[in-house]
C-alpha cells in the first residue's frame, strides 16, 4: 500500500517535471525573446533595461542552464512575475485557487451523484419511457457547449426569472458573515457548478447505464436472483457496485476536462478562480501568468488522478497495487 502510493507520487513528479520542461520551451515559442516580452509587459523597452532583465533572469546563459534555473524556480513555487498585474504569479494563483477548488469539486460531486442516479434509473427499467427520456437528455447535454448552457442559464434564471445572481462569488458590498455569507456564496455557486455538472452528468449517466446493463447479464446476477434476493438489493449490492468501476476510471480521466470547463464557466459567470485568471492572462497576453496557471492546473490534475487511483481500491478490492 505505502510503496504503491510512493511509486505513484514518484511517477507524478516525473510527469510534472516533463510539463515544466515543456512549459519552458513553450514560453520560448512566444513572439519575441522573453526579455523583450517582459520589458514590453513592464512598459519599458530601452536597451539597458532589457539587458538588465536578461542578466537578472539568466537569459544570457546557455539554454540548458536556463532550463535548470527555470525548473528550480518552479519547484520552489516561484512561477515568475506578472508585470501586468504587478504581482508574483504564484501569489495571484494562490489567491484564486480556493474559488476554483470549490467550484470544480462541487461540480464533480453533482455530476457523479446525478449521473450515477440517472444511469441506475435508466438501467433499472431499460426500454421504458424513463430510460428513453434519460438517454435522450444525456445525449443532448453531452453535445451542448458549456459556455452556451451558462449563458442560457443566465438568460433564464437571472434575466427572466430573477432567481439567482448572474455573476461573481458573493454580493459585492453586502458584507454578510457566518451563515448568511455561506448562503450568499451558495446562491452564486449554483449556476456555475450546475453548468459544469450537467455536461459531466451526461457522460456519467451514459457510462453507468451501459456498464450496469453489461453487469446485469452476468451469471452471478442470475445466482443472486435464484437465491431469492429482491430486485432492489440485487441492483444496489451486486449490479451497481460492479458497474461503478469504469465510471470511476472515467471520472479520474476527466479531471483535466473539468479544469477546461472551469475556464469557460468562470469566464461567463465572472467567478474569481484560476480559470478566470487564465482568461484575463489571455486577454492581456500575459504569457508568464498564462503558463503559470497551466502548470498549476496540470499539477492539480496529477493530484486528482492519484486520489482516484486510491479510490479505486475502495470501490474494487480485487485491484492489486501495482504500477
Amino acid at each position: 500500500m505505502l510503496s504503491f502510493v510512493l511509486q505513484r507520487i514518484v511517477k507524478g513528479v516525473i510527469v510534472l517535471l516533463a510539463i515544466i520542461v515543456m512549459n519552458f520551451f513553450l514560453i520560448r515559442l512566444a513572439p519575441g525573446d522573453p526579455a523583450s516580452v517582459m520589458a514590453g509587459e513592464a512598459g519599458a523597452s530601452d536597451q539597458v533595461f532589457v539587458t538588465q532583465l536578461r542578466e537578472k533572469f539568466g537569459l544570457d546563459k546557455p539554454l540548458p542552464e536556463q532550463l535548470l534555473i527555470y525548473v528550480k524556480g518552479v519547484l520552489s513555487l516561484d512561477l515568475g512575475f506578472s508585470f501586468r498585474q504587478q504581482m508574483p504569479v504564484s501569489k495571484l494563483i494562490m489567491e484564486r485557487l480556493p474559488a476554483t477548488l470549490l467550484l470544480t469539486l462541487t461540480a464533480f460531486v453533482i455530476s457523479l451523484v446525478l449521473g450515477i442516479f440517472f444511469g441506475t434509473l435508466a438501467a433499472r427499467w431499460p426500454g421504458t419511457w424513463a430510460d428513453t427520456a434519460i438517454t435522450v437528455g444525456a445525449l443532448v447535454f453531452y453535445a451542448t457547449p458549456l459556455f452556451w448552457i451558462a449563458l442560457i442559464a443566465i438568460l433564464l434564471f437571472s434575466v427572466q426569472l430573477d432567481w439567482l445572481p448572474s455573476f461573481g462569488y458573493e454580493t459585492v458590498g453586502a458584507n454578510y458573515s457566518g451563515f448568511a455569507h455561506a448562503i450568499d456564496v451558495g446562491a452564486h455557486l449554483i449556476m456555475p457548478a450546475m453548468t459544469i455538472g450537467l455536461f459531466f452528468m451526461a457522460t456519467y449517466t451514459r457510462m453507468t447505464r451501459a456498464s450496469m446493463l453489461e453487469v446485469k447479464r452476468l451469471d452471478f446476477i442470475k445466482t443472486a436472483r435464484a437465491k431469492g434476493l429482491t430486485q432492489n438489493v440485487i441492483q444496489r449490492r451486486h449490479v451497481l457496485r460492479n458497474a461503478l468501476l469504469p465510471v470511476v476510471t472515467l471520472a479520474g480521466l476527466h479531471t483535466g476536462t473539468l479544469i477546461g470547463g472551469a475556464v469557460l464557466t468562470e469566464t461567463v459567470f465572472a467567478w474569481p478562480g484560476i480559470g478566470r485568471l487564465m482568461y484575463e492572462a489571455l486577454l492581456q497576453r500575459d504569457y508568464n501568468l498564462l503558463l503559470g496557471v497551466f502548470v498549476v492546473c496540470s499539477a492539480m490534475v496529477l493530484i486528482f488522478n492519484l486520489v482516484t487511483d486510491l479510490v479505486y481500491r475502495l470501490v474494487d478490492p480485487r485491484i492489486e497495487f501495482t504500477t
Partner: protein
Amino acid sequence: MRFTEFFQTIPSFALAIVLVAILQPSIYSITASIAIVSWPPVARLVRGEVLSLRTREYVQAAVVTGQTTSWIIWREILPNALSPVIVLASLMVATAILLESSLSFLGLGDPNLISWGYMVGAGRTVIRQAWWITVFPGIAILVSVLGLNLIGEGLNDALNPRLAKEGR
C-alpha cells in the same frame, strides 16, 4: 505509451488555449492545437486493436509465409484495425467542433473567419437586449455535435457490434 499517457494527463483545453495564445490565433494554429490535444485516444485505440489482431491466425499465417513485418502491419493489420478508428473519428470531429467553438468564444478564434463560437461570445455583451445572437449559433453547434455523435454511434453499431456498448 508513456508519451501518450503524459499527453492525456495534461488538461487538454488548457493546453489548447496556451498553444493558440502563444502561436497567435489563426486557422492553422487552431487546427494544430486541436490536433495536438486530440491524438492520444486514437493512439491508445490503435495500439489496443493492433495488439489484439497480432495474435490472430491470419497474421500468424502471414508470418509463416515469410512476409516482412512492415508488410504485415500495412497490408494485414492496419486495414482490419481501421473500423473503430473511423467511429472514433466521427466522435472526434464532434469534440473538435466543441473545442474550436470554446476557443473562439474566449476570443482565440481566427480573426478573419467568424465561427459559431465567436458569434456566441460576441453576442454575450448584448444578451439582455438581443438574446437571439447568442441563442441560435449555440443551437447550431448543439445540433451539429449531436448529429455527429449519432452518426458515430450508428457507425459503431454497423461496423463493429463487438464494441457497440463501449462507446468511447
